[in-house]
Structures are given as C-alpha cells and as structure tokens.
C-alpha cells in the first residue's frame, strides 16, 4: 500500500506569493494545487479613473515586467483611439520591452533557477562543486556577473523611458521621449557591452553560431564541438540538467499560447519569425507543435476554484469581473489567481511557447522528441536573448539613422473598447479596456502567471504548473528540489509582497 504525504510550501524565488500543495505517493507527486495568496485588485483601482490612468497604474502591477504592462495599456488605448503609431514610436516601445526580456531571462536563470543546482541534494552530482562555484547565492561567479550586467543593460530603458522600473513613457500614439543621437549611441554601447558578455559567458559562442543550431543532434554536436561551448553557462546547464534528468521532468499539458509581440515598423530590416506576420514574435495556440491561428475571442477566465464571485460560466475578459468572494465554497476555491483558458483549454506560455509558435527548428525538434520539460523550458529562456539581440540593435540603428516622428496625436479618448495583447517576459499578457465618458469603466488583466499558476477550471482541469508537477519524482520530501525545478521552469511571477527586512533572514516555514 502506498504512503501518501501532503506537503504545503511557500515557494521562494518566484516573484511573490505562491503557495503550493502537493500530494506525494510512492515518492512521486500524485496531485498538485497552486494557490496565489494575495488579492491585488488593480481592476477595481482602475475602474472610474481617467482614460489614460492605466499608463501610470498598470506598470506598478509588477516591479519586473512594468514595461510589458505599459505596452499592453498603450496598445489597448491605441486601439480605442484608432491611432497609428509612427515607426520610431514602435521602435522605442519594442526596444525597451526587449531589454526587459533579455535582462530578466538571465536574472531568472542565474539568480533563481540555477541556484537549485547548488542545493545539497546534488552533492553527489559530478558537477556539484562547479555548480556551487557558479551559482551559490551571493558568491557564485555567474550570480555576481548577472547582477552587474543586467544593471547596465537596463540603463537602456532608463535612457529611453526616463526610469526603470515603472516607466510611463509610452502613450497612445507612440512615446513621449525623443532621444537624441548621444542617447541612442549610449544605448548601442550598453547593448554591445551586454552582448559581448552574453556571447562570451552565457552562450560561449556568437549569437549567429547559436542560432544556426537546428535540431537536437545539432545541439549535441555544438556541445561537443568546443571547450568554450561546454564551459559556457548554457553548456554547463545542458550537462548538469541532462545528468539530473530534467529532460524527463515537468511535462505538463503540452499546449502553448502566445499573444504575439513587437509590432514591426512599416520600414524596417527586421524580419518576423513567421513570414507574413506584422509582429516579430507571432501570436498563436499550439497543441504540441501543431499551431492553430490565434483568435482572441477564445480567451476566457474561469473562477469556480478562485476566490472570486462565480458568474456561472467562464467569461471573456471584456465581459468578466474581478469581485472577491472568499466564502461559500469552502474547500473548493483555493486561489486569488483566476484560471484563464483558450477555447476551454489550459496552456503554458513564455519563451518556449514563443519558440514553438514561431516554428523555431531546434525547439520544435526538442518538443517533438521529448515533449515540453524543465530542461527545454529553461533552455528556451536562457537563449531567447539570442533571438532578440539583433533586432534591438537594428531598431536602435534605424532610429539613429531616421528623422521620423515618435508620436501621432490620438485626440481625446472619450469612449471605446480595446485590447492590448503582448508578450511579457513570462508570456502572454492582455489588458482589456472599456472607456466611457472619458473614464475607465472596465479593466481586466490576464498575466502570464495566471496561465501558469492557474488553479482548476470549471471542468476541474488542472492549471499548467499543477499538471506539470504531477509525476515529478521526489527523493526527499524535506528537500523537494525537484518540485522547485518544475515550478521555476515556468518562471512564475506572482506579485510584489511585503519585503521589509527581518532579523535573521527569511521565514522559518519550509520553502523551496
């Protein structure tokens, strides 16, 4: 007879408040429940405020993806105003959002995900000592370099947007900043500096060399080709993760969603990932690697297992509401996160979803061969900057070379309905907005982590992380490092929380 253990644990190194309950039987996760533990209420804060207030308030939803929220808020207002953003406005919006991605991708990798490799659970792993040297919190070489390099590259956002984080330089019709030549040259310098570090230390090769990898066998060959490849952070990650079995963990539903991002300027040398698209990163939904056309009308939010008033059926975010309701369904409702679904189906989002939907040959091959898993998810995140860095540089140079407008006046926004859909660093982000009498009468936000840390839906189906956790082996339930791998492979980001300094460090509760 199998023995069942239930673990309830706050999860550290996700950005905010995530409680995870897992049932373990025969040393494997038999079931899982993800619970967001804090009500935010941004939708209520926004209702009744001025039409443009989302530009200032929504970047405060999150301290690490504020540019993505600003982008979504601006796109929604662009749609309502019916304004066309000039090419330079599009470029400056894209550049800042891309910089937000490329710094967050490595911060997540080397400050959040890889420290698990230095967990004593791996002390018998033949690369353990090297993992400690690289990733030990506060002392690991990669951790220190990451803080230094990301600090510098984020200056690009500050130069273009006035500050980081929580900038509000995007407005309907474009951007309010008009950088001078010296500003743009400074941005190019910062970008080159970051690229040099990323290529030398993270990839161990030039971006073009990495992007030439087309398949799993190419990846194996790349790893064997040079010492620089094996000793790079990506090379080390692959060697450690394969031996640790991370290519067999955290499979999940195998569905992917992207809202698409980075509108292409009308005149640009940047090519979309999928021919014919008007955005660099395509929108879409995929079951495995079978990609379907994206229809935003198929998005809905389920609240049957969330602490919100149940409207009897899942609603599209234009029709939904966010009304707290924490009683009456004891034992059933367990999260402050809603359960977003696409055509009623759960999905994961983020860098791997973007790669699959773009038809990226390497990740298409990897998913085909072994399905989504922890290793592939994290590899897609670590190497997404290789997809974006060329485009950032081209758009900086195009802005430098041109003299076009950055802003097109949208006129007063008095009423209308619009959605702003983009890709935040962690995946699909949407703002659905209704304006009436110059005021916001409706605002709904679906974040990437709502897709990932979703609770059960109306049909009882698990969210993406819950599903991915099922089957995860747990060798030691007092140090369930394997669960941490699965959760962190989604780069879950809940909310900023109380962060005051506590004597003696963090909470005594078990954290993973």
């Amino acid at each position, binding site marked *: 007879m199998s023995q069942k253990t239930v673990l309830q644990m706050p999860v550290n190194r996700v950005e905010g408040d995530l409680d995870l309950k897992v049932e373990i039987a025969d040393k494997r996760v038999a079931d899982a429940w993800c619970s967001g533990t804090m009500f935010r209420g941004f939708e209520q804060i926004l209702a009744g405020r001025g039409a443009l207030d989302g530009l200032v308030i929504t970047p405060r939803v999150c301290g690490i993806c504020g540019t993505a929220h600003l982008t979504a808020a601006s796109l929604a207002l662009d749609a309502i105003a019916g304004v066309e953003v000039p090419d330079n406005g599009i470029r400056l919006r894209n550049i800042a959002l891309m910089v937000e991605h490329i710094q967050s991708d490595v911060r997540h990798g080397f*400050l959040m995900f890889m420290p698990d490799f230095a967990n004593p659970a791996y002390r018998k792993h033949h690369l353990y000592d090297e993992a400690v040297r690289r990733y030990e919190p506060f002392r690991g070489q990669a951790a220190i370099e990451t803080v230094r390099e990301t600090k510098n590259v984020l200056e690009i956002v500050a130069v273009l947007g006035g500050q980081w984080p929580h900038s509000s330089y995007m407005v309907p019709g474009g951007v309010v900043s008009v950088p001078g030549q010296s500003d743009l040259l400074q941005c190019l310098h910062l970008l080159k500096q970051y690229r040099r570090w990323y290529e030398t230390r993270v990839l161990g090769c030039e971006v073009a060399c990495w992007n030439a990898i087309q398949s799993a066998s190419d990846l194996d060959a790349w790893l064997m080709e040079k010492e620089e490849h094996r000793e790079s952070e990506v090379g080390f990650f692959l060697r450690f993760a394969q031996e640790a079995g991370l290519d067999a963990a955290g499979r999940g539903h195998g569905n992917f969603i992207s809202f698409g991002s980075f509108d292409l300027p009308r005149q640009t040398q940047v090519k979309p990932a999928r021919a014919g698209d008007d955005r660099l990163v395509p929108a879409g939904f995929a079951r495995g690697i079978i990609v379907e056309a994206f229809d935003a009308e198929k998005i809905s939010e389920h609240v049957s297992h969330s602490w919100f008033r149940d409207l009897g059926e899942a609603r599209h975010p234009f029709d939904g509401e966010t009304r707290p309701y924490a009683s009456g369904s004891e034992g059933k409702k367990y999260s402050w996160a809603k359960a977003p679904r696409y055509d009623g189906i759960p999905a994961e989002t983020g860098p791997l979803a973007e790669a699959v939907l773009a038809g990226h040959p390497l990740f298409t091959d990897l998913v085909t061969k072994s399905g989504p898993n922890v290793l592939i998810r994290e590899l897609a995140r670590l190497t997404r900057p290789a997809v974006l860095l060329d485009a950032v540089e081209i758009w900086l140079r195009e802005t430098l070379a041109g003299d076009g407008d950055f802003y097109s006046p949208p006129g007063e926004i008095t009423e209308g309905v619009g959605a702003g859909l983009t890709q935040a660093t962690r995946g699909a982000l949407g703002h659905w907005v209704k304006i009436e009498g110059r005021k916001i009468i409706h605002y709904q936000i679906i974040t990437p982590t709502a897709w990932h840390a979703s609770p059960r839906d109306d049909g009882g189906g698990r969210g993406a992380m819950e599903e991915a956790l099922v089957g995860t082996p747990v060798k030691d339930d007092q140090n369930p490092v394997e669960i941490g791998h699965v959760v962190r492979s989604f780069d879950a980001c809940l909310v*900023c929380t109380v962060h005051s300094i*506590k004597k003696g460090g963090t909470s005594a509760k078990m954290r993973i």
Partner: protein
Amino acid sequence: MSAKSTRIICVGNRLVESDNVGPRVYDCLARRDMPGDVSLIDGGLMGLDLLRFVEGVRRVVFVDALHGFAARGRPVVLDHSAALAERPARYGHDDGLAYLLRMLPAVCDSDLPEISLVGAESPIGPDVVEQLADLALSIATRGRYERGTDTAVDAV
C-alpha cells in the same frame, strides 16, 4: 554623480501598513529643506534596481520597515556592518533591500559607500515618523550614529 554626495533612500510600499515606514518618512523629509549635498530618493519597491543609486556616493542612509530588532514602533539604526550582514536566503523579490545589501560588496562598481539603515516595526505614529526622519537626516549629514546618543533609539 558627485563622490561627496549623500543619499537618503526610503524603501517600502505605501499601500501596505506593515511596509510603509520608508514612504512615510520620505513624505516627511520631502517637506523639509535638505542640505545641499544630501539627496532624497523614493526607493519604492525597487530592491536590486536601487544599485545604481548606491554607486558613486559617499554615504547612503536607507529607511525601511524593520522586523525583530526592537520593540514595535521603536526606532532602530543598523550601522554599516550590521546592515550588510542581513542575509536573505536567496534571491527573491520579497528580499529586495536585504538582497541588495548582501550583494553590494560584490557588485558595487565604485568604492563602497558608508551604509546605514534606519527604521522601525509598524505600526508607527507620526511622532516616530518625525523621529526617523531626524535620525536619517542626522546620519546623512554627520556620519554614523553613535550608540547611546539617544536612549529612545536602539543601535545594532
């Protein structure tokens, strides 16, 4: 950025009572005339992203909510070594300032400034807010806090 400059950086979330010490002290100091070489910064929830504001200056006084150092509401000053000794387990947003302080010696791209941390455990009344503002300004202008200067303040 002047190598002689001093900064008071107030940290916290004004919407959360247990974390609003820094913002309240910021509001208090913002109403006062600041000495010429002292700049006041609303650090909000920036955590690690405050690193830029710590580099290239001579002295930094952080103001934040503190838990467990003294009785609730009683002002506390952590000197340079005590502040840098605060150790969050690992990186996480909820360890913002503690993480920054712990990483600072390894990642600061200038001479390490003299660090002090001033705060109290919420809830605090307006009198304690004024007291913390006085403390922060005093340390910013005169240098480190001398233990025993004020019996109403605990020094760590």
